[in-house]
């Protein structure tokens, strides 16, 4: 076996191993995301929606109080803030639909990035059919990123395009070595991204909340139920306050 053939075997086995690792990491990440989404839903259904109701009552109380003293600037500002909070909470809990995000701003830099990408990887400039398909796929991603106003995404596609192992089509040993090296580099990058996403996810509030609650539940507690009870109690207190405020009106 030639030394370059040995090197190719080594590289390809490293690639296989790395591919397995990346797949596992991606699976873990996706599973966690789904679990968090499920937990979040459960939390909003039990406690979140009660918090939103609480904020709604507070907003009503603040409104009544603002109406009682129309000259009190602080009361007016307070009522407005309370209403905003109530709206935000209702949106978060999924009680009302959130406003769609405003369309992105098309900056000159974004336009420039798009031009670069189109010039580099336009499907029409492909010489073979597989290459044309690859470019079509990539350009579709660029178009989507442009619509979102996502400049970093376009830049990332450009960067990866040049290093794409799929661009190497030759079947000889040298080509295969280059292809494997590129693929390994790509996998390492992906691994880094997955780990970053994982770390970021573990920093989120919802992740901490999930952990806290699941620890208590593992010991046989019902922390969400307890919190809900507490909130229901607060709700009935707020209702009384609102009634009293209305009677003063």
């Amino acid at each position: 076996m030639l030394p370059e053939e040995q090197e190719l075997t080594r590289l390809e086995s490293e690639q296989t191993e790395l591919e397995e690792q990346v797949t596992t990491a991606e699976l873990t990440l996706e599973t966690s995301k789904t679990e968090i989404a499920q937990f979040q839903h459960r939390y909003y259904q039990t406690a979140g929606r009660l918090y939103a109701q609480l904020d709604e009552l507070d907003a009503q109380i603040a409104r009544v109080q603002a109406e009682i003293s129309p000259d009190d600037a602080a009361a007016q500002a307070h009522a407005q803030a309370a209403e905003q909070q109530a709206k935000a909470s209702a949106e978060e809990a999924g009680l009302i639909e959130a406003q769609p995000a405003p369309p992105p701003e098309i900056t000159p830099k974004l336009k420039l990035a798009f031009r670069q990408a189109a010039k580099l990887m336009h499907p029409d400039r492909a010489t073979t059919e597989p290459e044309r398909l690859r470019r079509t796929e990539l350009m579709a991603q660029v178009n989507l990123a442009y619509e979102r106003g996502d400049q970093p995404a376009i830049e990332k596609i450009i960067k990866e395009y040049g290093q794409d192992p799929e661009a190497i089509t030759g079947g000889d040993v040298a080509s295969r070595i280059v292809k494997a090296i590129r693929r390994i580099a790509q996998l390492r990058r992906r691994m880094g991204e997955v780990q970053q996403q994982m770390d970021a996810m573990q920093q989120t509030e919802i992740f901490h909340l999930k952990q806290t609650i699941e620890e208590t539940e593992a010991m046989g507690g019902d922390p969400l139920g307890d919190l809900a009870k507490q909130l229901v109690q607060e709700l009935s207190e707020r209702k009384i306050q609102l009634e009293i405020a209305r009677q003063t009106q």
Partner: protein
Amino acid sequence: MTERENLPAIIVAQDVVISTTQRGSLVMRGLAAFQENKKRELDADAQFNLGYAYENGKGVPQDHKEAVKWYLLAAKQGHAGAQSSLGYAYGHGEGFPQDRKEAVKWYLLAADQGHATAQYNLGCMLGCMCDHGDGVPQNYKEAMKWYRLAAEQGFTHAQINLGLMYYYGEGGDQDYEEAVKWFRLAAAQGNADGQYNLGCAYDNGEGVPQDYKEAAKWFRLAAAQGNADGQYSLGYAYDHGEGVPQDRKEAVKWYLLAADQDNAKAQHSLGYAYDHGEGVPQDYNEAVKWFQRAAYQGLAEAQNNLGLMYQKGRGVPQDHKEAAGWHRLAAEQGYASAQYSLGLRYKDGQGVPQDYKMAVKWFRLAADQGHATGQWELGKMYQDGRCVEKNDEQAAYWFQKAAEQGNVRALESLKKLGIDWKK
């Protein structure tokens, strides 16, 4: 209580300041609430543990006042264990003056949180046989509810009390099968009272088909754990050969164990064994000793037998007065044999001044309960016209009653009256 809590609600309501700017996302708020609760729980746990240490003198000198102080702090934060302990402190007047109403209040708080001991204690307070007239009215239905909740958690004392409520039909219809169900659960957990009660159910065939063998099995399990009722019942089973081969020696062994625990029935049975030399060598002194211990506890059979020992001068110097005294105690409890014995004392003027009127009174009470010799004696009083108007019809009536039970003297008397009586 903070000052704010003392303000009228209207002022508090107007004073509501909502710092909306400081409110984070709903997730953040939930997280903060849990962390706060956890911290409070830890505090409450520490307070409860300190209260427990003072109550039981563990690591600190026992001090009920100090204990309830800490329990109160934890209980106010919703600590179920502390609430239950506080209920106990009020119920038993430990560290506080006794206040059953307060006790119920705290037990309720803990019981609502599912605290089994509190549920059981609450059941005990509400299901108490007597109304204390202290603001805690007897309520069998409620008691049953709390017993059931604790029983379903596997709390054996509650299972037994729930079973007993079904057995006696307290708080609902009598239901032996349901009673047995709960006794069995407690028994299966190794609770001696549960085993004894289950044994009784088999012994009497209540809720289960009568089965002396099964009864003896459960009595033995209870007895082995030192349960006095179980020991007496196992002794009785050996004494009468019910479910086990008759063995008087074995019977005496178990009676003795129960008698040492002040079980009156066992003391009486032991006295009887010594009196008749069954399973032990006859010993009147020992018999008197055990009859006395049971009689002092108010057991009518023992009082009557002690009276007989005095009358016959067995194990004690003969003393008719003393004998009549013990017969009277038993007779007044409605014990037919004692009523007959006392009637006899009055008729013969032994230990009491002769008084036919009193003799008739006590003979009649015994006769009404079906005491054969008492019936014959009453018949004789009618026949002889002693203190009652001579009345052969009445005499014949009572002679027949006695004869039905195979009383030989009654048969004689009937024959003398010229009545050909055949069973």
